[in-house]
């Protein structure tokens, strides 16, 4: 009896997943195979002809190979910002959790403020212009780090509390300097939450749309999400090319997720057991 309900439950979960995640993805793939006229119908039907390759070529070549530039830019922004985020957030989280001072309250308030106060676009651009960072990739990277740092810090701070202090002390007794303690003892132990951070932040930054739209003007600075605007406009949209574009730019986050999938699950259970 019990077995039957669990099978039923599993089947329901699989069906729900299929409806919520797989069907939209199949829709994207089907649309990417259609020509412009059929795609304008936006129905769930088999393509009448095989147009996938022409669509891909068209999408990649549009606006002077903008897609290639966009992939390079987005990769640089994502990789560098996530690296900086992980290092800085882990350091801040570690210190915040380990060292209790009377400033902790204020610092935690500021971190939360960074999470809650919405950033204003025009003053930020003025600041960037003053620092000669406006419209540059490294300026964009610093913005992504600044906007996403509070969330990462909170994740790390909570997790550092689960690592026993004895480990730090043992390392210090064995002669480790402060940086050794952090990089050789603590950071490796933070791996589960680091993976969570990498996945969440890299998908978020790779898919970021509004920030590059305002902070990173210029054709040479295009990012992948902005290439969607090549095919979608206020009054006219080429749905076949739009969905081909979506398909192409969905692949990298999908790869990241598949690569880290096992680790995420492992990390979650590891954290749970430690409690």
């Amino acid at each position: 009896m019990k077995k039957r309900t669990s099978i039923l439950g599993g089947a329901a979960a699989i069906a729900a997943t299929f409806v919520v995640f797989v069907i939209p993805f199949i829709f994207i793939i089907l649309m990417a195979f259609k020509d412009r006229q059929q795609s304008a119908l936006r129905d769930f039907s088999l393509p009448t002809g095989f147009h996938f390759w022409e669509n891909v070529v068209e999408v990649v070549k549009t606006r002077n190979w903008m897609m290639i530039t966009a992939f390079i830019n987005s990769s640089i922004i994502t990789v560098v910002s996530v690296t900086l985020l992980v290092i800085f957030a882990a350091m801040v989280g570690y210190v915040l959790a380990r060292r209790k001072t009377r400033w902790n309250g204020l610092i935690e308030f500021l971190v939360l403020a960074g999470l809650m106060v919405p950033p204003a676009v025009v003053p930020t651009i003025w600041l960037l212009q003053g620092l000669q960072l406006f419209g540059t990739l490294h300026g964009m990277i610093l913005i992504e780090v600044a906007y996403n740092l509070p969330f990462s810090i909170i994740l790390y701070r909570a997790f550092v509390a689960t690592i026993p202090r004895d480990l730090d002390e043992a390392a210090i007794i064995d002669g480790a300097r402060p940086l050794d303690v952090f990089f050789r003892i603590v950071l490796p132990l933070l791996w589960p939450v680091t993976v969570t951070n990498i996945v969440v932040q890299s998908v978020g930054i790779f898919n970021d749309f509004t920030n590059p739209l305002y902070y990173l003007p210029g054709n040479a600075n295009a990012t992948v999400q902005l290439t969607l605007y090549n095919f979608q406009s206020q009054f006219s949209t080429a749905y076949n090319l739009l969905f081909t574009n979506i398909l192409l730019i969905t692949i990298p986050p999908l790869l990241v997720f598949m690569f880290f999938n096992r680790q995420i699950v492992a990390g979650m259970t590891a954290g749970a057991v430690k409690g």
Partner: protein
Amino acid sequence: MTKTKLIALMGASTLGMLMTASAVQAQQSGYLSILVDNGPQSIATMEAWAEAYKAMNPDVTIDIEVRPGGGEGDNIVKTRLATGAMADVFSYNSGSLFQAINPTQNLLPLTDEAFQDGVQDSFKSVVSAGGEVYGAPFAPAMGGGIFYNKPIYEELGLEIPTTWDEFMANNEAIKEAGKVAVIQTYADTWTSQLFVLSDFYNVLAEEPDFAEKFTANEAKFATTPAALRGFEKLQEVAEAGYFNADFGAATYADGVRMIAMGEGAHYPMLTFAVGAIAETAPDYLDDVGFFAQPGDSAENNGLTTWMPDSVYVAANTASPDLAKDFVAFIASPEGCDVRNEAVGATGPYMVAGCELPADVPPSVSDMLPYFQEGGQNAPALEFLSPVKGPALEQILVEVGTGSRDAASAAALYDEDVRKQAQQLGLEGW
């Protein structure tokens, strides 16, 4: 600084000025950045202009950047103007949205440029602020009216209606033949406004000073019978059940496809839809015709027109002479030819000497008589008055779906307009 040095410097700068002055006459050189909205026609046209201009001036490099349209585009344009990061030349709306980007501070006046002699005064009036003209027409003029499917008209033996009663009679005949008479597409709410906005020619025919009185808070939609007619027309069509079954969920793209392929007989829309038909259903372009929204009298049948977007030069451009020369090229007959070549003709040009090609689609040629001698047209209300309420489209969706009647919708819109007029600080509100 010694006197000789000063004189030498003055001499050098005069020489420099002379040289730039002569360069305006001859070939241009330098770098020009352009920001254009991401409508496929806008991009294709701008790229064609840039290519043609570079062919004439080989030393010029042009970089075209694309921005979204709609509300997001407004934000981008305003942000970039406010932070001084605007491209040298950019395209943007004319009329009330143009006034909102603070033109006297952010844009370079083009009043005294030679090309303005050829631009129609009606266009200049919608890109002027503080006594200066700031823009050049980016596209041909548009009309607001009703697209009709020619094969359906031929099949049922219908005539182009010149009065509202004839239009309704046509609708009845089409409905009896088992076809969709009027296409409405409320998934894109802005499309709901056409019956009211395109009726403005008929409003002006009866109340020639409606726009001034409306701006001065003396005339209202709800209390002016001629203005209320637009709301009533939508209600009549809705109550007669002429709409397509999926009018609540259909999109503008659906509407364009339906009118082209004969899935519906009438679609009230702006004539820029010709471009969308040419892209999504090129084989059916010749099946679509166009007529102005009929009024109550056959003698006084005219078209409500929309001014095209404009190209502007940013005030802080690094190369004003090059930018002005490029804009002058856009607003020249050669510029129109390049546009005809690139995206085809979508309507009459606002520049003297611009010709339409002989083989324009019927929906465009149907529109031309309204602009020629003896034809009648009038600008839409949004080009005569800065007052346009933001909720008109939602209110009209209510009328179209039958949840509100015309009279109360007009009264609600008058209330909606009040807020906007007060924000603009107009007198009398």
